[in-house]
């Protein structure tokens, strides 16, 4: 029987299973969501991951500790500096290497620049998800400045291999320092433009405020970290709670969600936390450049690194949350096991709990606000 406008009783009304992804522009990579829809409403959504699985943890068991560093760059490829930093800190902690102060400062400068670059990608892509094309161009314009600085510093534009076990690969020169100063000035100038363009945009607020609310309790229970946790009002930042790499010397705020445009823990809050974090990172870079100590950029590290028998876990505050490396050593040049605590993995696991009874279009807003990178989810 044909269903026509005259015969509404013959319309099909059962629930439909719809695939979103893995080839979908708003899933930020190869994420497949299987969505159970009831008309325009979503009843459940099951994320299917693993399309980008590259056996990082298996490879890490067969190469030496030093050879693992470039692989870590490819986990969260928008924050390579931060990944390598976390891994190097874990190895150094178990081996007992003393990293020179200058190297720690350079690592912080690089990591905070990378954090801003990562948040700029989020800013641009989230606008794109919500139907605003222009913010993308703004975000990538400033990101380009960072990439060019990091390229001069490390030689790579995305995958840097800059933090090394014991220190960093290269020293900074006055020209790069001047370029970073210029960038700080430029970033502070354009930041209010972002707000006029997107943060305060009425359509954007309608799409994100009161959408995808994550309560404090749910955020903690599902192991959310980073801006997703702070967006729900938990002021927890590893750089402050358990400082690593001399972060305790720097003065910065921890922005948290306040429900300014809607409910505490909604998509807009998570978005806003990231925007404010960019300014805090600028503060840290400024202080690090001003107080950059003289000295060596790398510790004395033996050619073959053998860690003592034991295990270590080090967590670092990545742009997406707590990235942790858990290394178990049995005294050989290769690790017995290297496990990655990937922030996006835990952050994404809350999906099915928060998409119940939202509109299909809001799923895009919710997934975008979690800011996932499939490279570290699938590893």
């Amino acid at each position, binding site marked *: 029987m044909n269903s026509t406008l005259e015969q509404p009783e013959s319309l099909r009304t059962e629930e439909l299973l719809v695939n979103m992804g893995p080839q979908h522009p708003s899933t930020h990579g190869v994420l497949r969501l299987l969505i159970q829809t009831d008309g325009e409403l979503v009843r459940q959504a099951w994320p299917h991951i693993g399309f980008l699985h590259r056996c990082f943890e298996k490879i890490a068991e067969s190469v030496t500790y030093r050879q693992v560093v470039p692989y870590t760059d490819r986990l969260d490829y928008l924050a390579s500096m931060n990944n390598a930093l976390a891994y190097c800190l874990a190895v150094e902690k178990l081996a007992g290497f003393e990293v020179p102060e200058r190297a720690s400062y350079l690592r912080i400068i690089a990591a905070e620049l990378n954090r801003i670059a990562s948040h700029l990608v989020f800013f641009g892509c989230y606008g794109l998800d919500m139907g605003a094309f222009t913010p993308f161009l703004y975000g990538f314009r400033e990101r380009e400045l960072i990439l060019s600085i990091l390229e001069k510093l490390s030689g790579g534009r995305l995958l840097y291999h800059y933090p090394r076990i014991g220190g960093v690969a290269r020293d900074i020169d006055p020209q790069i320092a001047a370029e970073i100063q210029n960038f700080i000035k430029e970033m502070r100038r354009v930041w209010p433009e972002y707000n006029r363009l997107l943060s305060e945009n009425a359509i954007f607020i309608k799409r994100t405020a009161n959408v995808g609310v994550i309560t404090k309790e749910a955020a903690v229970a599902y192991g959310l970290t980073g801006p997703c946790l702070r967006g729900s009002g938990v002021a927890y930042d590893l750089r402050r709670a358990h400082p690593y790499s001399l972060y305790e010397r720097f003065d910065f705020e921890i922005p948290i969600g306040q429900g300014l445009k809607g409910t505490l823990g909604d998509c807009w809050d998570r978005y806003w936390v990231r925007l404010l974090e960019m300014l805090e990172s600028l503060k840290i870079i400024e202080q690090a450049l001003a107080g950059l100590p003289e000295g060596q950029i790398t510790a004395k590290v033996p050619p073959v690194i053998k860690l003592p028998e*034991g295990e270590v876990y080090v967590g670092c505050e990545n742009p997406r949350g707590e990235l942790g490396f858990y290394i178990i050593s049995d005294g050989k040049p290769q690790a017995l096991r290297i496990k990655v605590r990937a922030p996006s993995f835990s952050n994404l696991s*809350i999906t099915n709990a928060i998409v119940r009874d939202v509109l299909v279009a809001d799923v895009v807003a919710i997934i975008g606000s979690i800011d996932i990178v499939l490279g570290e989810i699938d590893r």
Partner: protein
Amino acid sequence: MTPAEIHSRLKEKFPSAVGEWQEPKAGDPCILLEPQELHEVCLFLKSEPGLEFDYLKLITGVDRGDKLSSVYHLYSYKHQHALVLRADVERAEPKLPSVADIWPAADWLERECFDMLGIVYQGHPDLRRILLPLDWEGYPLRKDYKQPQSYHGIKNE
């Protein structure tokens, strides 16, 4: 609280389930648990005032030869202390109680350990592979894993 203090408190409450305290020569300390009582211990750690481990960071599966172990990294936001638990199971019968009802974060983390090492978490709501295809054979992070020669006609050469 330091891990040693937490250990003595656990030992008092669960004398048979908690192993002896071992000061690590390097790195972080780790508390050994009997797998049968893992669930009760975790429930205690989550709810006991003064401990309140509300954040499960990570579950790691490790192949140690004749045994497989499941390692839990816990943290408490309230008290800002951390703890590492480890339960070893026999390779022939790697079964453990699931903690997904205590920390929802364990849902995906346990699925990954099952996927990579074949550790079965009993009571898990939906224990299936997460990163690999559902029809994949074997558990890649076991030390005796052999790469398959082909997968659905795709040759591994």
